[in-house]
C-alpha cells in the first residue's frame, strides 16, 4: 500500500520542477523522467505485494461529504489495472526525452510533463478508489489533466478543437457517473464500493445503475456511438500522450464497468447479450472506420475503438456466464477481457510510439505521402510491424492469445445441447473474425504504404523524403521494451494467464486458476506459438540466405514498360482500402472526389476519398447547431428595455400569486413528484 502511495506522490510531483526552472533547461525533463521511472518501480513493487498478499483497504481521511470517507481499496483486480498505468507511464516519460525536447517545445514542455504526471496519478487513484467520491475525484482529475496534456499545443486550431471535444465528452461522462453513484448511494446507503445485496436493490434501480454505468464509462472508453471525441484527441495529442490515452485511459472506463457490474447482484443475461452485441458492433465498425483514414494516428485511434469492442465482447461473455451459471464462459471471458486490456495497452502504445517517431522525422502523418521508410528507419519499421501483427491478433504475438481465449469462450456457448439463445451468442465469433481480417487489411495498408516500397515525395529534397534514419535512442528504448513484452506474452501465455487468474480471483466465484486450465490448454498453445516463432525465424533466415546465394542482379521494379515510372505511381493507401471502403460505403459514407482522364490528351486525373467521423459530423454537430439556434431565440427576451424587464417581474408576481388559487396546486403536485 505504502509503495502505491509513494508512487502516486512521485508521479504527481514529477512535473513540478519544470515549472520553476528555465524553459530551455534540460535537467527538469530528465528529473521528471527519472521520477516517473521511480514511480513505475515502486508502483510495480506495490502491485507485486498485492498479488502476493491479497487485498488491502485503508481510510485516508473523512471526506467533505457528510458520513463519507476517502477510502482506498487495493485488490488484485485494481493491481492488474495499475500495471499498464505505471509501465506505459514510465515508458512514455522515457520516450518524452527524445520526442518533446525543450529546445523545440520550449513553452509547452513543462506543462506537458506536469499534466502527464498528474494524469498518471489520477488514473492510479481511480483504480484504487474504495468509494464513489474518491472515484469521482480521480475521474475528474484524470479528465482535466488529460485535457491539459492534449491541448498543450493550443496555438493549433485542430488541437484546441480536440481538447474541447475531449472536455465535453469527459464532462458528460462525469455527470452520468454522478447520477450513477447517487443511485448507488440510494441503494447502498453509502458511497463505499461494496457489493449490493439483491434484497436492498429494486431491479429497476439496478437496471438504471447498469445503463448509466454503461453510458458513463462507455463515453470514456470510446464505445460507439460515444466515441466521437476519440479520433481527434488521439490525433491531436503528442504521441506518447496518445499512447496513454488509448492504452490506459480508455481502460479506466473498462475498469469502472467491470467494478460496478461486479458490485451489482445477479446481472441478467440480457445485460451480457447487450454488451456482447455492443462489443461486436464496436469491433467491426471501429476497424471499418480505421480503413478509411489517411492519417496514421487517426487510424490507430479507430483501432482503439475496435479493441475496446473486443474487450467488451469478452466482458459480455463473462456476464453471460454469470447469468447462465456457466463458470467456463465467465472465466474465459474475464481472462480474455483482462489480458486484452494489457495487450492493447502494450501494442497500441508501441504503434503510437513508432508513429510518433515517423511523424517527428517526416513532419507528416499522412500515410499517402510517406513510403519506403523501412530502409531508413529499420528499427521503427520493425517495431511497427510487431505492433501490427499483434493488433491483428496474429500468432505468435500477445494479441492472438487474448483473442484466442475469447474465441474459445464464444465457441463454447455453441456447444451441443446449449439452448439456441446462448448458442446464438457464438455468432459473435464470425464478427470477431471479420474484425480480425479487416484489421489485417488495414495494417497491411498502413505498414506497406509507410515503410515498404519507395518514398512518395516528388523530389528527394522535400521534407517528406525519409528522414535521417531512426529516432533517438531514448525513443527506441521504450519501443524495444514494449515489443519485448508483446513477444513474451505471446510466447509464454501461461505465465501471463497466471497473473490474470490472480486478478480475477476477487470477482469470481469459481476459483479461476484450476478452471482456466481445465477448459483450455494454454500450455499447448504456448508450445505452438513457440514452434511457430522458431519456424518463422527459420523462414526468415532462409530468405536472407537465398539473397546471399541466389541474387543475380538488382533492377528497378517491373513497371509494365512505362517510359518513365515515378515513385508516385505506387499504389496508395487510399486505393488499397478503396475496395473495402466501397463495400462498407453504407456505413462509412466516404466523400469521394475523382477526376477521370478523358480524351486523347487528358487533363491530370486524380482520385481521393475521405471518411469523416460519422457520429460527430453527421449527428452531434448538426444537433448542437440546432439546439443553439433554438436557444438563441430566448435572447430576444434580454433586449435592454427596462419597461419589459419590469413587466417580467409583474408577470412573475401574478403567476406566482395564481398558485394561491385552488388550481395552483397543480405545479406543486408536479414538482413534488
Amino acid at each position, binding site marked *: 500500500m505504502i509503495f502505491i502511495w509513494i508512487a502516486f506522490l512521485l508521479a504527481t510531483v514529477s512535473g513540478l520542477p519544470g515549472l520553476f526552472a528555465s524553459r530551455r533547461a534540460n535537467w527538469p525533463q530528465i528529473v521528471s523522467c527519472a521520477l516517473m521511472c521511480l514511480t513505475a518501480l515502486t508502483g510495480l513493487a506495490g502491485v507485486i505485494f498485492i498479488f502476493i498478499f491479497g487485498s488491502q483497504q485503508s481510510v485516508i481521511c473523512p471526506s467533505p461529504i457528510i458520513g463519507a470517507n476517502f477510502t482506498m481499496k487495493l485488490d488484485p483486480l485494481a493491481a492488474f489495472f495499475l500495471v499498464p498505468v505505471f509501465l506505459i507511464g514510465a515508458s512514455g516519460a522515457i520516450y518524452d526525452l527524445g520526442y518533446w525536447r525543450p529546445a523545440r517545445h520550449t513553452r509547452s514542455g513543462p506543462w506537458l510533463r506536469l499534466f502527464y504526471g498528474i494524469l498518471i496519478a489520477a488514473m492510479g487513484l481511480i483504480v484504487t478508489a474504495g468509494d464513489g467520491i474518491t472515484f469521482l475525484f480521480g475521474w475528474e482529475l484524470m479528465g482535466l489533466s488529460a485535457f491539459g496534456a492534449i491541448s498543450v499545443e493550443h496555438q493549433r486550431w485542430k488541437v484546441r478543437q480536440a481538447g474541447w471535444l475531449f472536455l465535453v465528452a469527459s464532462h458528460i461522462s462525469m455527470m452520468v457517473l454522478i447520477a450513477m453513484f447517487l443511485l448507488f448511494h440510494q441503494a447502498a446507503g453509502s458511497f463505499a464500493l461494496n457489493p449490493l445485496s439483491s434484497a436492498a436493490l429494486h431491479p429497476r434501480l439496478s437496471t438504471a445503475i447498469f445503463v448509466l454505468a454503461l453510458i458513463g464509462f462507455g463515453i470514456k472508453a470510446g464505445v460507439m456511438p460515444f466515441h466521437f471525441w476519440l479520433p481527434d484527441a488521439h490525433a491531436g495529442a503528442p504521441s506518447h500522450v496518445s499512447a496513454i490515452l488509448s492504452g490506459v485511459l480508455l481502460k479506466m472506463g473498462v475498469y469502472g464497468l467491470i467494478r460496478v457490474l461486479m458490485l451489482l447482484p445477479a446481472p441478467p443475461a440480457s445485460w451480457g447479450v447487450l454488451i456482447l452485441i455492443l462489443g461486436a458492433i464496436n469491433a467491426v465498425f471501429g476497424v471499418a472506420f480505421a480503413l478509411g483514414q489517411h492519417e496514421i494516428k487517426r487510424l490507430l485511434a479507430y483501432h482503439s475503438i475496435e479493441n475496446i469492442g473486443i474487450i467488451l465482447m469478452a466482458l459480455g461473455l463473462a456476464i453471460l456466464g454469470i447469468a447462465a451459471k456457466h463458470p467456463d464462459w465467465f472465466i474465459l471471458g474475464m481472462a480474455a477481457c483482462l489480458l486484452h486490456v494489457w495487450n492493447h495497452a502494450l501494442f497500441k502504445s508501441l504503434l503510437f510510439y513508432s508513429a510518433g517517431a515517423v511523424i517527428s522525422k517526416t513532419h507528416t502523418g499522412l500515410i499517402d505521402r510517406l513510403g519506403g521508410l523501412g530502409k531508413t528507419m529499420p528499427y521503427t519499421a520493425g517495431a511497427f510491424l510487431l505492433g501490427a501483427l499483434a493488433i491483428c491478433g496474429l500468432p505468435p504475438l500477445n494479441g492472438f492469445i487474448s483473442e484466442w481465449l475469447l474465441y474459445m469462450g464464444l465457441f463454447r456457448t455453441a456447444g451441443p445441447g446449449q439452448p439456441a439463445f446462448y448458442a446464438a451468442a457464438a455468432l459473435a465469433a464470425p464478427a470477431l473474425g471479420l474484425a480480425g481480417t479487416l484489421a489485417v487489411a488495414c495494417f497491411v495498408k498502413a505498414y506497406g504504404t509507410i515503410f515498404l516500397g519507395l518514398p512518395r515525395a516528388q523530389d528527394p529534397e522535400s521534407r517528406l523524403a525519409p528522414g535521417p534514419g531512426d529516432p533517438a535512442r531514448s525513443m527506441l528504448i521504450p519501443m524495444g521494451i514494449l515489443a519485448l513484452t508483446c513477444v513474451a506474452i505471446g510466447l509464454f501465455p501461461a505465465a501471463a494467464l497466471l497473473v490474470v487468474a490472480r486478478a480475477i480471483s476477487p470477482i469470481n466465484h469459481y476459483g479461476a486458476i484450476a478452471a482456466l486450465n481445465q477448459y483450455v490448454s494454454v500450455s499447448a498453445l504456448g508450445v505452438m506459438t513457440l514452434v511457430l516463432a522458431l519456424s518463422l525465424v527459420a523462414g526468415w533466415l532462409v530468405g536472407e540466405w537465398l539473397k546471399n546465394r541466389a541474387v543475380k542482379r538488382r533492377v528497378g521494379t517491373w513497371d509494365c514498360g512505362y517510359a518513365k515510372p515515378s515513385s508516385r505511381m505506387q499504389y496508395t493507401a487510399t486505393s488499397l482500402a478503396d475496395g473495402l471502403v466501397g463495400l462498407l460505403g453504407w456505413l462509412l459514407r466516404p466523400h469521394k472526389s475523382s477526376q477521370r482522364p478523358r480524351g486523347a490528351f487528358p487533363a491530370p486525373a486524380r482520385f481521393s476519398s475521405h471518411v469523416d467521423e460519422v457520429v460527430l459530423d453527421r449527428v452531434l454537430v448538426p444537433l448542437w447547431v440546432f439546439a443553439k439556434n433554438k436557444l438563441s431565440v430566448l*435572447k430576444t427576451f*434580454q*433586449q*435592454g*428595455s*427596462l*419597461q*419589459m424587464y*419590469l*413587466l417580467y417581474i*409583474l408577470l412573475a408576481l401574478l403567476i406566482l400569486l395564481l398558485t394561491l388559487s385552488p388550481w395552483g396546486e397543480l405545479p406543486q403536485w408536479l414538482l413534488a413528484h
Partner: protein
Amino acid sequence: MSTSILSALLVLVLLLNLFALGTSRIRSLIQIAALQGVLLGVMPLLLHGRLYLIGVLIAVGTILIKGMLIPKILINALRDARIKREVEPLIGLLPSMLLGAAGVAASMIIAALAPKAVGESSTLIIPVSFATLTTGFLLLTTRRKTLTLATGYLLLENGIFIFGLLLLQAMPFLVETGVLLDLFVGIFVIGIILQHINLTLDSLDTRRLSSLKD
C-alpha cells in the same frame, strides 16, 4: 367619524391614481404624486381616534418627504432636462386608464376574497393600496421617460405605505422612519443618476438606455 374621512381620503387617492394614468404632462403627474403623498401623510392621524406620538411624527415626516422633498427633486430634474414635457406612453393614455380601472376592480375583488383580521379600521385600505400598486406598475411599464418611471416607483411606494397603515402599531418608529428615509435616499440617488443621464446622453428617454443587451 374619522373612519369615514379616512375612506373619503382613500377614494380620493383612488381618483388620483386614475388621473396619474390619464395625465399627459409630466409636471402634473409629479404633482399628483405629491398630493397623494400629502393625503397619505394625513391618514395615520385619522386611523385611530386620537393622536399619539408615533402617528404625529410619521404624518409630519411623510408630508415633508413624500409631499415636498421628493417632488421637488423630480421637478428640478424636469427643469434641468431640456425635453418635451409629454409623458410619451408606450400604450395610449386611454388604454392605460382602462387598465388602471381594471386594476382597481381586480383589487376590489381580491381584497374581498382575502381573509380579514379583526379590528380593521376601513375596509377600503387593502383595495386602495393594491390599486395604487397596480397604478405604479402601470406607470413603470408603459411610460417612456425616465422621470415618469421614477414617479411610477413613487406611486408603488405609496400603495405599500397605504397597506402599512393596517399595522401601524406593529411597525415601530424606527422601521417606519427608516422606510421613509430609504425611499427618500432612493429617490435622491435616482435623481442624481437622472442628472448624469441628462448630462451624458442629453436626454431622459429610455430608448437611449437600452444599449446593453444579448
